[in-house]
């Protein structure tokens, strides 16, 4: 056996007094960490394959299990950390590109946590959402510069198609293939019940889910998987995916092993072949080319659907957004560098892109400076973790937020960041039927509805505290924000003052 240069990341700790050898952990672990040794009459654990998904811990009826970090440490070194060294060992062993999943976990600043909200005191009374009407409904799409009325009072101005959201939250693009059918069904049903939208991602739309069309955003990516007339017409809006926060500048790649019959049907590709979405759309090399795709989609759907263009937050995001606003798109979605993914090369995920907070602030400012902010709505994604992140995003200038990771957490995800293995014990990022059935969409959708309802209420409480009773009045209202522990440059980019000022 070859020598192991690195030790398991985790330790599986089993309290032998508590363990009743029911073998539930063994049955639940797709990574085959646990097994029962009949000869010894005891449960044995193999920490080597553990990903710390916490499934066994949650399922254990006697709370006998704990997963902890492996206390074994390489010699301390601030430069060559254990993680960095382990990655070198892995690559020396296999020669492969490091592949991981979910959002960037590194210790970069989280600007949401360095921004504080305002509240009214004395001069402008706070509003209590339990007793007074509050409006969190938003409309996404182009807004006319002026409105004219006919003599009978009806609106004369031609209004382009918009999306109506009961609260400024949508579920991010996650394809069927990267996540399971039951996860998709949970998202679709929750979106329908909540009066918001979920997003198919680039994997096409399963026939069974066409009925949720009015609450569905359908995505068109460079691979064009599952894109055809019915698909485009079924969605409430069409999103052109140019980039993704977790992996800006590279494409998608669903391995053939995950293209089972149902996924193949939905993507409209043969079973077992890789689904490759190249990094670029090879027909888009300029804003003019983007405009061509935007308008070909508008033409194909008779100008009835708003078109979203989704990009990753990168260094010159403001200039790119300005171009998109001029391309005819109705909505720009910007995905920050902490955005999740079902699979991304580690080096890309951890090193490419910029924080969504800074990207949003600079895009909103740029569009305002150029007098075209009304031409597009701005939706932000890439780690919106709570209702306060939503409120801060809207005050920085967003029209709405996409949530992906938070939605998956609601479904049971414990962020073990191993989606790329396809062995998700929570039935989310897997296509294995025995694992998929662990996620009950009846329960899943209910948990998503709970989450968004709770956030909606918290949003109302926070803006009510500011004396604001409509989310529209919060948008771009940066006076409601103060920075804490930020330097001059950061404050300048965010367009906010420091706490105490």
């Amino acid at each position, binding site marked *: 056996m070859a020598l192991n240069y690195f030790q398991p990341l985790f330790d599986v700790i089993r309290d032998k007094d508590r363990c009743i050898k029911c073998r539930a952990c063994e049955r639940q672990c797709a990574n085959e960490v646990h097994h029962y040794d009949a000869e010894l009459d005891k449960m044995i654990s193999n920490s080597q394959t553990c990903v710390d998904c916490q499934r066994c811990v949650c399922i254990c009826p006697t709370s006998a299990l704990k997963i902890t970090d492996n206390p074994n440490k390489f010699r301390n070194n601030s430069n060559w950390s254990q993680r960095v060294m382990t990655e070198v060992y892995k690559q020396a062993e296999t020669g*492969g590109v490091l592949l991981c999943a979910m959002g960037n976990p590194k210790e970069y600043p989280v600007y949401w946590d360095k921004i504080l909200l305002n509240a009214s005191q004395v001069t402008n009374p706070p509003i209590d959402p339990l007793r007074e009407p509050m409006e969190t409904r938003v409309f996404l799409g182009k807004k006319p510069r002026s409105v004219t009325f006919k003599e009978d009072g009806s609106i004369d101005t031609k209004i382009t198609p918009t999306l109506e959201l009961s609260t400024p939250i949508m579920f991010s693009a996650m394809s069927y293939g990267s996540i399971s059918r039951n996860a998709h069904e949970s998202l679709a049903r929750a979106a329908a019940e909540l009066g918001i939208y979920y997003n198919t991602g680039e994997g096409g739309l399963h026939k069974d889910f066409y009925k949720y069309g009015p609450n569905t955003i359908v995505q068109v990516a460079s691979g064009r998987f599952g894109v055809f*007339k019915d698909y485009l017409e079924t969605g409430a809006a069409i999103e052109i995916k140019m980039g993704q926060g977790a992996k800006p500048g590279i494409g998608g790649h669903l*391995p053939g092993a995950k293209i089972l019959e149902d996924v193949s049907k939905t993507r409209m590709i043969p079973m077992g072949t890789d689904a490759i979405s190249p990094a670029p759309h090879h027909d888009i090399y300029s804003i003019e080319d983007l405009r061509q795709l935007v308008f070909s989609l508008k033409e*194909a759907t008779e100008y009835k659907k708003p078109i979203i263009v989704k990009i990753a937050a990168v260094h010159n995001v403001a200039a790119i957004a300005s171009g998109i606003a001029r391309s005819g798109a109705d909505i720009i979605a910007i995905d920050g560098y902490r955005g999740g993914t079902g699979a991304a090369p580690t080096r890309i995920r951890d090193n490419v892109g910029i924080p969504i907070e800074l990207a949003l602030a600079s895009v909103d400012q740029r569009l305002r400076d150029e007098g075209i902010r009304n031409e597009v709505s701005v939706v932000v994604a890439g780690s919106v973790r709570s209702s306060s992140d939503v409120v801060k995003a809207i005050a920085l200038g967003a029209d709405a937020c996409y949530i992906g990771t938070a939605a998956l957490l609601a479904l049971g995800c414990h962020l073990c960041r191993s989606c790329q293995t396809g062995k998700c014990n929570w039935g989310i990022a897997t296509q294995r039927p025995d694992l998929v059935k662990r996620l009950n969409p009846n329960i899943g959708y209910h948990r998503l509805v709970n989450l968004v309802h709770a956030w909606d209420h918290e949003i109302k409480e926070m803006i009510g505290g500011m004396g604001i009773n409509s989310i529209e009045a919060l948008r771009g209202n940066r006076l409601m924000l103060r920075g804490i522990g930020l330097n001059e440059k950061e404050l300048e980019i965010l367009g906010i003052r420091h706490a105490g000022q």
Partner: protein
Amino acid sequence: MIINANEVGYYDLNKTIVASTDTEITVKNAMGQRYIGCGVAGKRITVEGTPGNALGAYLDGSRIVVYGNGQDAIGDTMNNGEIIVHGSCGDTTGYAMRSGKIFIKGNAGYRVGIHMKEYHEFFPKIVIGGKVGDFLGEYQAGGIIIVLGIGCDGKAPVGSFCGTGMHGGRMFIRSDEIPAGLPVQVSCTEATDEDKASIDEYVAEFAENFGYDKSELLSGKFYKLTPNTASPYKQLYTHN
């Protein structure tokens, strides 16, 4: 219905086509209007002049015949139908097309048939009479691309990087020489009689559309390009 497209913008032109209850539509004097026939099902559209980009994008079962040259993105993400161009056309012809047929009499630009895919009864076909630019069949995942190289004197009628990322489908190149610089994941063999029989009907249709002799076209030497594997990137990753 006959529409004179002279000095009509694409928006109005396409609105007229979509709104028309006629199945036979002739567009005269096309002058670069984009998106003609975009997503249209069940019509026969004849275009005289030069249609603009994205002709027949998302086409869903119509037949479009162009008497003139086409431009870029003909049949982008086309789902079914037929596009026949009595001339040459530009880049990304048949981008991600899933089914139906595209026949180009003359030459075509870069990235012809990029990301073409097949699925069950869906099987896309592209036949180009002359030569094509770089990146023919890039990321091809299904269907068939035939380049006949008419007028190329037996020289390979394709540009550089032919078949880059190809992982499904097949290409037939009529040429006396093997296209240069094929990537490692593409295998190239001289087409057998059996191979040629498999493309007989498409070459026949091409010949019929544009007045060529099928057997003369098929008598030449063809190279057949197929991917070595359906999962060319399988070995690339290390789980982290």
